[in-house]
């Protein structure tokens, strides 16, 4: 390993380590009621693997590689799209009951 390669590796490891610490700091503050949406939301984020799948698809020349990258792109897209949509569906439900008709009257006033 050359010094430059070692340098690159250390840069990547630094990013990795700091991202872990950020993950710990951000997550420990979330209340229990939001844990399921949170798990689902974090689940969508690892769909970022789609970026990697696209990059290997672009370089795929062998049939084996093309099949692998096709499956990888399909899997990763399912993770991204499904993950965000189902998380949004869950979070949509965490809304307050419309108690006062106040917003409605505001709208009516604005409309008249």
């Amino acid at each position, binding site marked *: 390993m050359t010094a430059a*390669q070692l340098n690159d*590796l250390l840069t*990547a490891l630094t*990013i*990795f380590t700091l*991202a*872990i*610490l*950020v*993950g*710990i700091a*951000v*997550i420990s*503050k*979330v*209340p*229990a*009621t*939001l*844990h*399921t949406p949170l*798990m*689902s939301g*974090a*689940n969508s*984020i*690892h*769909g*970022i*693997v*789609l*970026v*990697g*799948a*696209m990059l*290997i*698809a672009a*370089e795929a020349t*062998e049939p*084996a*590689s093309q099949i*692998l990258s096709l499956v*990888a*792109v399909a*899997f*990763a*897209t*399912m*993770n*991204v*799209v*499904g*993950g*965000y949509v*189902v998380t949004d*569906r*869950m*979070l949509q439900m*965490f809304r307050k*009951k419309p108690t006062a008709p106040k917003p409605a009257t505001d709208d009516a006033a604005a409309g008249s």
Partner: protein
Amino acid sequence: MTTLEIVEILVRIAWLVGAVGFVIGLSRMNSPATARNGNLLSAAGMAIAIAATAILILVRQASGTPVAGVAWVIIVLGVAVGGGLGLYTARNVKMTAMPQLVSLFNAVGGGAAALIAIDDYLGLAAGSAVRIDTHIFIVLDIIIGSITFTGSIIASGKLQGLIPGKPIYVPGGQLVTLALAAITVIAALALFVSGTPNLLLMVVILAAALTFGVTMTLPIGGADMPVVISLLNSFTGTAVAMAGFVINNPVLIIAGALVGASGAILTKLMADAMNRSVLNIMIGGFGGGDEAAGAVAGAGGSVRAIGPDDVAIQLAYAQHVIVVPGYGLAVAQAQHAVRELAELLEERGVDVKYAIHPVAGRMPGHMNVLLAEANVPYPQLMEMDDINPEFARADVALVIGANDVTNPAARRPGSPVSGMPILDVDQAKSIVVIKRSMGKGYAGIDNELYTNEKTGMLFADAKEGLASLIAAVKAV
């Protein structure tokens, strides 16, 4: 700088913007008010990162880097198929079936991460020297990605009921799991020492890791699945970070590490709420030998059955009612019925609150999602620490399909549930339990709450029981 160099720099900046979107998005999921916005922010970051990647490939192609035309076919076809499946299932899944869908999305994410490493490995020239760090990242990506792929599919199948939810013990199963782990480690070490690509060893590692995912998850009971899914979610994040090292991509490393860390914290929180260690769950806890030793002395007193009409009168003339929903309510899909009952009582001036144990339902916070789906106002959902002091003021505590999380035996040592945080249901002036039978909860022990002299048992399925209560309250 050439156009390609400029674009590559801009794409790296776009990836950084995407990563910032993930971090801020996750932090905005702190509170119900900003959570949805946070998820959208994270989705926007994802869209930016993916669009930038597509532009990068286009510009590379225009600058003469050979990109086969079939590459675009692969990407478009893959996105269409995967996106279509993801969108359809996410839109149409019932909220009670949501945990298994999340597990399935987790499986494909882990699978994609493993495939990237496998592809990279196939591209290494035979006989060439492989740098030790490249080798390690590829092997770790394949191992972790494969375990999470098969493990999440099994977890999803268990929650869906395709595979029996109860722990499946194969004779010598743990030995098989251990042997698989040993094979994986030895094959990986052999690869590292050889320093050259070896397809056979890699196939051995892949097969052992895929099988390990199955044998690891099969013996774990359905009630522990949330913890397992959370753990596997963390694994996938780690696998994606490893894929980032393999193809030298910073946004994969950042996002993967973020999810790896968040999943690990979440797993620990969930296990803590059940008073179990993650290790204990993975080895297969409760069911093993100590079940008999955990039998509680003093249980087995008489049980008082109560009819819906009596319960309706108690509820209708109460001032404060606390509903304690549990797994049974989720299974019977009775969340709409419980909201209907609560609204009837509120019309009569009764104050109704819901006591949500952290692990009620099938995942932490799952009960909140189910009740929110049934339009239960969010402020009525009280977390354990907030509601526990209020039980003493409650005229009636209505327990629907919850068992172990209400067992007072948890306050004493010597029982399998000892030390588990519980809802102080026994403090209420009167207790009504809707339950199908005297069957035991997941811990396999009697619940002392049921033999409490203040407790009346309404033997019914959660949905039917609530329907009869609604009818009876209307008649009061």
